């Protein structure tokens, strides 16, 4: 898996938003110099609090947001230098799944119309073949076929999310980028979609970039975990290694905050206090130093470099962290 070219790779990617502020326009760096690669059939989870830039990263990966610097490579080819045909391949093979199932489907179109649209774009125009493909996509997401003639408002949130997934599957993608696909759903719908993702990866070797904030969900799915804070990638680790020994103080705090006391008496102190600073004016040095429990002198002056924790490369890649605590290693 390591030798093969990654499906998608971002190198030193930055994404900027322009914020209209009074008379002047300010630039907000939603993603800053981030590098990440996704191998075939791999599930990478990108986690962080809201405003950390994870949704901007997802949108940049499919080309909905332009990169202000850096480059995106699809199957090893730079996206910026692509001709129309290669770009079309990238668009087809990389599908985006949105968070809000209620706005993911056009309210005035029947489900079958929403599903036929990607097929038309792929040039599948014959009725018979469209039928066949739509039927098998519907079966793949375990929905009954009478759902096809309904309108989105007649479906539950989980059903809509599964239709959105079916629509992505019709393009036969190699990579699905899912932006918080489970957070709007009930426990049982969540579980159903989770097992669907696992099945799809196993049977079709589809890779996933899963944008999430619920670490319990992440552990169910992910091969690797990427932690973002204020636009920076501060830790990247194989899932086992992450859940056993997360390195960055922020990752540790996130983990602790999402570990409920299933067995013990109630906890009394929040793990992370305060909120992330504004991304318009990010702190100097390490961006996390304003909330870090283990902050040192160095932290507000020097931006920490990427450190590789375990020298020997495991099957699932390196454990990398950006934190001064590990600089001496």
């Amino acid at each position, binding site marked *: 898996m390591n030798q093969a070219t990654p499906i998608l790779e971002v190198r030193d990617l930055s994404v900027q938003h322009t914020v209209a502020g009074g008379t002047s326009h300010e630039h907000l760096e939603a993603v800053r110099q981030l590098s990440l690669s996704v191998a075939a059939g791999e599930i990478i989870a990108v986690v962080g609090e809201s405003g950390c830039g994870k949704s901007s990263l997802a949108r940049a990966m499919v080309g909905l947001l332009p990169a202000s610097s850096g480059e995106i490579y699809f199957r090893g080819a730079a996206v910026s230098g692509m001709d129309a045909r290669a770009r079309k391949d990238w668009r087809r093979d990389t599908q985006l799944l949105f968070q809000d199932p209620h706005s993911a489907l056009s309210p005035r179109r029947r489900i079958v119309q929403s599903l036929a649209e990607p097929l038309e774009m792929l040039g599948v125009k014959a009725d018979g073949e469209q039928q066949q493909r739509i039927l098998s996509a519907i079966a793949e997401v375990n929905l009954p076929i009478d759902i096809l003639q309904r309108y989105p408002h007649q479906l539950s949130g989980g059903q809509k999310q599964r239709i959105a997934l079916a629509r992505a599957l019709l393009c036969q993608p190699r990579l699905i980028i899912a932006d918080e696909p489970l957070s709007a759903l009930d426990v049982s719908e969540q*579980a159903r979609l989770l097992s669907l993702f696992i099945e799809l990866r196993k049977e079709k070797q589809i890779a996933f970039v899963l944008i999430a904030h619920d670490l319990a969900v992440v552990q169910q799915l992910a091969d690797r975990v990427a932690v973002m804070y204020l636009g920076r990638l501060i830790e990247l680790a194989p899932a086992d290694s992450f859940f056993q020994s997360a390195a960055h103080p922020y990752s540790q705090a996130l983990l602790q905050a999402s570990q409920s006391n299933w067995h013990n008496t109630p906890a009394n102190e929040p793990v992370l206090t305060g909120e992330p600073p504004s991304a318009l004016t990010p702190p100097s040095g390490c961006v996390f130093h304003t909330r870090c429990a283990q902050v040192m002198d160095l932290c507000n002056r020097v931006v920490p470099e990427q450190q590789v924790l375990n020298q020997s490369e495991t099957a699932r890649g390196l454990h990398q962290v950006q934190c001064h605590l590990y600089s001496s290693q």
Partner: protein
Amino acid sequence: MNPQPAHNFPAKPTVLSLRQLHLTMPVAGQVRDLIKGIDLDLRAGEMVGLVGESGCGKSLTGNALLGLLPSPLASVHSQVFVLGDKQDLAAADEKAWRKLRGRHLAMIFQEPQTALDPVFTIGQQMVRVIRRHVPGNRQHALDLATASLADCGLGDTARILASYPHQLSGGMRQRAMIAMALSCKPEVLIADEPTSALDISSRDQILTLLRQAADRHNTAILLISHDLAAVARVCDRALVMYSGRVLESGPTARVLNQPQHPYTAALMQATPRISKSRPLAVQPIQGRVEALHLTLPGCAYAARCPRATELCSQRIPELKVSNGNGRAVACHHPLPGAVS
């Protein structure tokens, strides 16, 4: 339900008790039973979690407790005792409710953005609420508001008081909302999905805050949530609702870790939990939730239940005290409740 010494709430007074809550509403022209008889006791300083999937009637129950239902449409039959005074939910008029709300009963919602008025500052809104219920001048109300905000971990109180809701982040708005709800020191706080719209770190902070309110001010809190992890984290007791009925209740850790009702067990298996090693894979629950207004002759969960027998679809199981641990379960074929 004898209080057991094993739990930390032996002699606390009951501040709110609900007997046989029934709620009917017209659905497609017919009057239907949505909430089909719920008993609930809240003791001072106790946090009770009301859990279930969407559409099980948990939010309706919370709203009924505060009289927040469209009155000509919904009719509520229940006996409620607030601080020992009998309050007839069906008969209470808007004036009686207004006296109770804010002062004795308070509520916080999932989305504080919509619960706070966008054209007034947090300070103006808090002072108005406080002055309605607590005697004293404006300055006194402002002092109480400041104290309440500080209590809720909002350090920069002067700035928060002068802020409009949109100037605060989601987590801060929810804190301000809680500060407002707690400012009159109500005996009962009903929190309807207070953390569902928040990040993990904010969620953690809000849950801790609610727990502190219960511990320090002896507030009884009903936490309505579909998030089992949140309930497990802070609640003393948990009630599992399904289709307008309570299926299981008892101390949180026992109900969730050693469920007796198959539905509770299924919910737990569908909830992902973090562990240091590879976690157990989640198991989706089979089938779908039936519409709340359907009245079935038997157990509403029977169609989805792996343990269901013929009896289950014929007779509705009663909620019975099971084994003296403060637990009760409504099931014809309960699990032993000792499996972890």
